[in-house]
């Protein structure tokens, strides 16, 4: 039988598949979390005659745009890191790109804190109305995920230092990458839906 042949022969391919199936389920779960938030957003947006409601001003785009640049660049540097890592590059060739990703991710968090400080200085508080609540809740929840993702990126440093690249290291790099790109996509959606339009 064709199926039974898989049992002993291709253990590495099997582990790769298991890891990617599990990661798909993880990302579906996270997508549903953010999808529910977007549902709440559209619920308020559709039922409100004007947007933002109650004569509120739109959020200034300066800090959100900076955040966008930071996170998009970090996704790109991660792609370079991954290409070099799987290309069998030496540690001193791959590590700078991983560090660059982490620094850009930290930069993203810095722009988020600046955004919150800026909003507060304009009297834009979470408790002032539903528009403010939406802006703050989206950014809080997304930022909490970014913090976890940054920790997993830091965890990749010892993985990269390790000379050998077995299937276990490969899965770690792939999955952290998927999670990071996922948060990038979620931020882009948030940027256009909440801040731009």
């Amino acid at each position, binding site marked *: 039988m064709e*199926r039974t042949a898989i049992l002993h022969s291709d253990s590495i391919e099997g582990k790769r598949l298991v890891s990617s199936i599990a990661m798909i389920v993880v990302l579906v779960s996270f997508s549903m979390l953010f999808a529910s938030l977007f549902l709440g957003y559209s619920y308020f947006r559709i039922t409100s005659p004007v947007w933002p409601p109650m004569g509120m001003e739109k959020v200034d785009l300066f800090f959100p745009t900076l955040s966008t640049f930071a996170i998009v660049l970090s996704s790109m540097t991660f792609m370079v890191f991954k290409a070099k890592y799987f290309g069998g590059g030496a540690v001193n060739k791959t590590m700078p790109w991983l560090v660059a990703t982490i620094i850009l991710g930290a930069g993203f968090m810095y722009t988020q804190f600046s955004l919150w400080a800026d909003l507060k200085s304009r009297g834009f508080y979470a408790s002032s109305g539903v528009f403010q609540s939406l802006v703050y809740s989206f950014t809080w929840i997304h930022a909490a995920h970014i913090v976890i993702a940054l920790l997993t990126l830091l965890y990749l440093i010892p993985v990269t230092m390790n000379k050998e690249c077995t299937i276990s290291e490969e899965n770690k790099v792939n999955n952290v990458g998927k999670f990071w790109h996922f948060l990038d996509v979620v931020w882009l959606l948030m940027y256009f839906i909440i801040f731009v339009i």
Partner: protein
Amino acid sequence: MAFYEQHIHPKPTTFISKYIFSYDHKVIGKQFLWYGILGLGLGGIMALMIRWALAFPGEAFPLIGRFMFPETGGVIPPDTYAMLFTMHGTIMIFYAITPILIGAFGNFCIPLMIGCRDMAFPLMNMLSFWLAVLSAALLVGSLFTPLGAAAGGWTAYPTLSTLIGSPGVGQTLWAVAIFVLGISSTMGAINYITTVITLRAPGMGYFDMPLTIWGLWLTAILNAIFLPVLGAGGLLLVFDRVFGTQFFLAGAAATSGTGDPVLFQHVFWIFGHPEVYILILPAWGIVSDILSFFSRKPAFGAKATALSMTSITILSTLVYGHHMYTTQMSPLLTQTFMTLTMTISIPSAIFFANWLGTIWKGTIKFDTPMLFSLGVVFVFGLGGLTGLYLGTVTTDLYLHDTYFVVGHFHYTMAASVLFGSFAAIYFWMPKMFGKMLNETWGKIHFWLTMLGLNGVFFGMLFVGYAGMHRRLYDPFVYDFLQKLVPINTFITWSAILMGLSQIIFVVNFCYAVFWGKEETDPNPWKVGTLEWTIPSPAPHYNFAEIPVVKCGPHELGNPNLTTDRDFQYQTEELVEA
């Protein structure tokens, strides 16, 4: 078709690594079983207190009443009553049924029945259990906060659950506990889905899986997709309560902007309706298998049963609006939701007919697991039929929020799932602990539970149809409900009978686990699924050799099998295959 060879953890030697922080799916399953049985006990005592207040208003609760409510002389106070029904619902759904069916039997049965050595991610499995323990600690801890536990109903509708409705910290702890439990269940779901896809024994296609695994697998898929939705709702509720956001405030409560309490109902029921199927699907699967095993016949239309469970899984995501007919939805929407809801009865009827087809002309053996499975067929039939009245807009507008609803969802979610759990416990007990439960006491337990349970829930349908609303502390202050005192007293006596008959089960269970001497046969029920081919209790790492599956789970005398046993596998041809 196992994708790879699993990593084998060394056999644990210390007590802590064996029973506390275990990687072994069988031990984690047993941990969840104890956790769920404790939850059933706690939620059950709360149910009895609620029933006592409804049947004997103003009388002290017997035995423990005077210690718990000294300021009222043992009478349950109104605010405590609200906490009781809230915590009863929450504990029974999230801390009793979910851990027993999904936690315990999901963990225990999936690797054994698909022929692998452990779950795909044993560490995540362990974390899932301990997160569930943390969540239970948060929830039980909320009972001891200054203003008491959450009291807004298990649905936690705003504005009952916002700071206006419940100012105490209890409701916040409730939302956090549910969020943590959501993470735990999602981790479990990731594990189950991956395990079923990748670790089936060689030769086992999806339709060769026992229907139990089908039920658990579909449940895991629903869990992974919809628990995060509840998580988002819970997070926003916590933000509203702690950081002063305005999602669910409305009217005078909101200082500016326009929050909306109904948004929470949408989010809650987008999760909540699939949750109903999350709870019932494993029970359906277990019952489908047990009916076949004890009728000594292949499951009638097993493929159709699996496919109709799948289509119910899909449909269940599209019908949540039928919980919200009274929220001023547009008639177009209510009719759409009504039609979709009615569509569910088609696949339900298919597998229900398959159950009856399975036992038709079978050689039925009335062992305790079979009795409980037949009980599920009966009570789920009743629960499903009463659901038609609630899914129809015109009748639901009258029945909404009455005891009819309470009776309906207890028949489907409580009675069916409880009987399914008992069937599973009696059935897999020899494989879990290596001991059989006493059959005679098992049968007495079944009949007393069946009597009490139907007295309670059928009575609820009557009082609900007569117009008694749920969640009222003392409904009899209303003139038109005063004639319902006798039937409410009857319901309460039935509940007491049902509660007391569980003592039989607890004694039977504890006696078998701790003091039972008799070692069982590896296959006491003479069935052919993979878990019965190994010794009882299941050894460390389950299968000495991974079996090669030759046919479906319910086939007897299949000519493909070279052994003289009716197992669905053989290990002899492992190398050549």
